């Protein structure tokens, strides 16, 4: 499967935090051909294992983590007219919501919209006031009595957005954050079929990163990796974006540099990218947090961790936009990194 189709399949399915089941199933289906074992754990993370060539008991493990969940909405009240009051799940940006198409994930999937009051019906000055979640509701066009058997308070709402190919290899979709990372997991394992590696590779699509980082905490505890790399998205360039905070699209994967990441992993990723002439960039991050690397670094007695990010425009919106080449290079870099893991590198990680 081509990378573009892979991204489409992964972003077409819902995986609102805490309810990643559908996305986990698709991930398992897509990654299985390149894995020795696949499973979904009891909290909803999808796990794929591809064994390395090492022999013996004390097997070395590298864990790759990309989060499966996406931001969304939850129904908090069903109004008399059948209108559904909502709250955010994860960091949903309220300013994108009016006029958005949604699917309510009840016993049936119901199509709806986040209602946007037309100018004709607005009070004077209303259009100048920022939208608040309290003003908003989801409308399925059905009356309350038609909804009672289908939707209950607590039902999740997926914000819809059709996978769209822009020009020059740019792709836009909902939940690129972080299905793009999940696509990297699949693509990395695929490339490792062609590239020898000693260590066992655990590719984890983690649950609930957007709300608690839960999936990374629990899977790292269970697997006890020797090295871990989080794969996430980072802020891309665009009008109004501060240059010092962005990793431009098309300039390759951004390798994380900062206290959250083991300096030797950062160095190794960057050296290998240069050695293989892979376009890449460095992303500096002075504080731990915002990605699965936050939990991985302090799992058990500590796991040397790194971060590779895909530059993404319009994060936490329905038009999350990236460049395919960046995803490709990210998978290439990780497959090279994994194939070059050895015991010497591992020993070095404790020498400061």
């Amino acid at each position: 499967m081509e990378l573009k189709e892979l991204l489409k399949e992964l972003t077409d399915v819902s995986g609102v935090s805490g309810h990643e089941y559908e996305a986990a199933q698709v991930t398992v289906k897509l990654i299985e051909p390149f894995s020795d074992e696949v499973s979904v754990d009891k909290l909803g993370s999808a796990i794929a294992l591809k064994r390395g060539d090492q022999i013996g008991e004390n097997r070395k493990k590298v864990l790759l983590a990309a989060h499966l969940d996406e931001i969304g909405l939850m129904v908090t009240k069903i109004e008399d007219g059948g209108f559904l009051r909502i709250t955010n799940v994860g960091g949903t940006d309220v300013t994108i919501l009016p006029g958005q198409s949604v699917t309510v994930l009840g016993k049936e999937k119901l199509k709806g919209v986040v209602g946007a009051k037309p100018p004709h019906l607005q009070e004077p000055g209303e259009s100048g006031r920022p939208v608040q979640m309290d003003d908003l509701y989801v409308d399925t066009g059905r009356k309350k009595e038609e909804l009672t058997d289908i939707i209950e308070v607590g039902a999740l709402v997926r914000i819809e957005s059709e996978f769209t190919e822009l020009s020059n290899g740019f792709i836009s979709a909902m939940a690129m954050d972080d299905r793009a990372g999940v696509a990297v997991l699949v693509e990395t394992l695929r490339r490792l079929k062609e590239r020898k590696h000693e260590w066992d590779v655990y590719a984890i699509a983690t649950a609930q990163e957007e709300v608690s980082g839960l999936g990374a905490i629990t899977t790292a505890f269970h697997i006890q990796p020797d090295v871990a790399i989080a794969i996430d998205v980072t802020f891309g360039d665009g009008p109004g974006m501060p240059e010092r905070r962005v990793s431009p699209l098309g300039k390759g994967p951004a390798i994380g540099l900062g206290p959250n990441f083991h300096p030797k992993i950062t160095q190794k990723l960057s050296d290998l990218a240069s050695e293989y002439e892979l376009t890449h960039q460095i992303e500096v991050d002075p504080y731990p947090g915002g990605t699965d690397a936050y939990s991985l670094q302090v799992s058990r007695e500590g796991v040397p961790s790194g971060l590779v990010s895909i530059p993404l425009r319009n994060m936490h919106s329905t038009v999350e936009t990236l460049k395919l080449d960046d995803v490709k290079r990210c998978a290439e870099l990780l497959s090279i990194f994994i194939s070059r893991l050895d015991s010497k590198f591992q020993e070095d990680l404790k020498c400061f």
Partner: protein
Amino acid sequence: MLLEKLSNASGVSGNEKEIRQVIKDEVTPLVDEVSTDSMGNLFAVKKGSDSGLKVMLAAHMDEVGLFIDFVEGSGFVRFKKIGGLDDRILLSKKVYIGENKTPGVIGLKPIHFGNKGSVVGSDDMFIDVGASAKDDKLAKAGDTATFATKLVQSGDILRGKAFDDRAGCGVIIELLKNSYPFTLVGVFTVQEELGMRGARIAAYAVNPDFAFTLEGTTAGDTPTKRDVSPSTNMGAGPAITIMDRSFISDKRLVNLLTDTAKRDNIPYQFKRTVTGGTDSGAIHLQQGGIPSVTVAVPVRYIHSPVSLMNINDFNNAVVLMDKTLQRVPEI
């Protein structure tokens, strides 16, 4: 499905090319004459008996949307709004630009970059088409852009864009399938959203005895902070306008509609707000004055990327209009 074709087609005011072609293809087999005028209004004439009576049906083809006014050297596309659009509905929406339907997205600064204390104005927004430099093939000044929304049906509810006024266009197309004892002129107008520009010259040219404007109008039966009567209710039947900002309906036509609805048990309602205008506002002033009325299908969330309409309201509008037209010679 007719409404699907009509809703999905693009036709931002001043650039109604695609929707005009869709409608032309639909009406050509149904009528005696099809023509266009200097602004792009589309006329479909169905001749009746030689009574001399002439009735005009008007619905506007155009829709609100975006007008590309500048492309940055970096490839980002800037735009102006066409028609009444609230800035707050624009962020994070997909659009198609120009004749090539270049896909683009209206981008935004992520939520992580701070609390948005004020509304982002459309002049500060941009469309990303995936270009890293100006590229006329993708987007250029003068292009229009429509929301990339596709119609979906779920039970009786249709979800899609531009029901204002593709609903009205659909009603006229359905009516042109029938025959009446007078000449019926279906007019699909341009530039209604820019101030009823097309209907004005169309009505002058047609010079009918009576005119009906068919619309998709605001359904206001949605949560509000003040206790006010909703403009119209979705699912409660076609809405007859008695008065709006642009005109006062001809009382004889209103009575004929309500009398017919009662006689034949067709649900109907009156529009209960007087905001907004329709093509009737331009039509009724032409020539020596043309008695006019507006009949509309209630639509929730008009002038946004996606709206809702109840298919029963559409069908009832067709039935009400058909039965009423049969009685126009009684006036």
